[in-house]
């Protein structure tokens, strides 16, 4: 199965994400009690990230957690981002705007 490497800059870790999986699945496999492991359905915002580089697809998420303007700036929810290449991200978490 195709795998992508997602590097989380501010945590100094890299996680493997299978083709078709979202980033949070990779994070949870690495550490299931990671703070980012919330509703896993795009609603709660605890998995908020900033995308530094890489290709990906997204699914609908709560705009209260990440607005369209924030998405323009690279913010996203890890449980709704599906890598299409290796990626580099930062973990932001709930309500932590940078």
């Amino acid at each position, binding site marked *: 199965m195709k795998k992508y490497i997602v590097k989380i800059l501010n945590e100094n870790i890299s996680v493997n994400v299978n083709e078709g999986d979202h980033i949070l699945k990779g994070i949870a496999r690495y550490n299931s*009690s990671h*703070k980012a*492991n*919330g*509703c*896993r*359905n*795009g*609603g*709660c915002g*605890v998995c908020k990230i900033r995308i530094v580089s890489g290709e990906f697809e997204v699914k*609908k*998420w*709560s*705009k*209260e*957690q990440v607005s369209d303007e924030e998405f323009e700036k690279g913010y996203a929810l890890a449980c709704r981002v599906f890598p299409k290449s290796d990626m580099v991200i930062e973990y932001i978490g*709930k309500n932590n705007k940078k």
Partner: protein
Amino acid sequence: MALKGILRSGLIQLRVLDLEESVDFYHDRIGLTKVGKLGNDRFMLKGYDEFDHHSVVLREADSPGIDFMCFKALDEETVKDVIAKNEKFGYERYEVTDQPGFGTIQMFKIANGHTIGVYSEVELAEQKPMTCNPKIWDKEPHGMEANLFDHALLAGPNQGECVNWFVEVMGMAITEVLYTEDKNGYICTWLSSNTRGHDVALLNFPDAGKLHHFSFQLSGWNDIGRAADIMARYNIKIDAGPMRHGVTRGQTIYFFDPSGNRVETYAGGYEYFPDAPLREWSADRAGEGIFYYTKELNERFLTVLT
């Protein structure tokens, strides 16, 4: 008439990200009955064991969460009484008339950012429990076999004031409390209008109008186990459980709907009577109150809300 005033929680409107996907989830998996579309962006459902027209409305929106939760009053006198008693609190009131099958719903914007409704008139549903030489069901239930919409845990600020509103205006009883560390306030309060352990619970939380979870009643522990099997089969995201709450003694699973709203399947729990003494929990035993077996709150309990 055995029970007077406010009878029960009876209607909830929930926001979802994708209406079609959510209707399938609540119908196929949780086992609700489809009642029908409401405009372009809403859908009505009900539990198979409920008499009323519908009890759950899903509304497609940009962000998940709760629009409002409503309570069934015995009669119009009760509704008038609630309106009068609300004067002291001065909470904004408005009328909603667009729920099919329902009479006017009086909505109150209470101080934790939630909207609470009261109504006395609702038509019987097409699909409802049998009443003449009744079988336990007319058509066998499916999915997790949710009987009915049971309760919700609403999060927001000004919790003490809102508790007073539910007690003084709605005439509901506090069944259990979880005190803050200094015992001067409550972290969470459980309130009942009937013999259930709770119809609504209020969680103190900085952000207004947040939904912690809402809950469907299942028949018993075996049904909770079967619900877990369905969650495993369809990769439904479980939050915690199967387990028991210390508070209310309910047997339960917390899980997430496709928009990240926390849902609960709930069974058992004690019967409450108005003369029962208050059950009290100290802050250091909060873990046991919520997660009775593991005795530890998970990280998600106080961070994951919609």
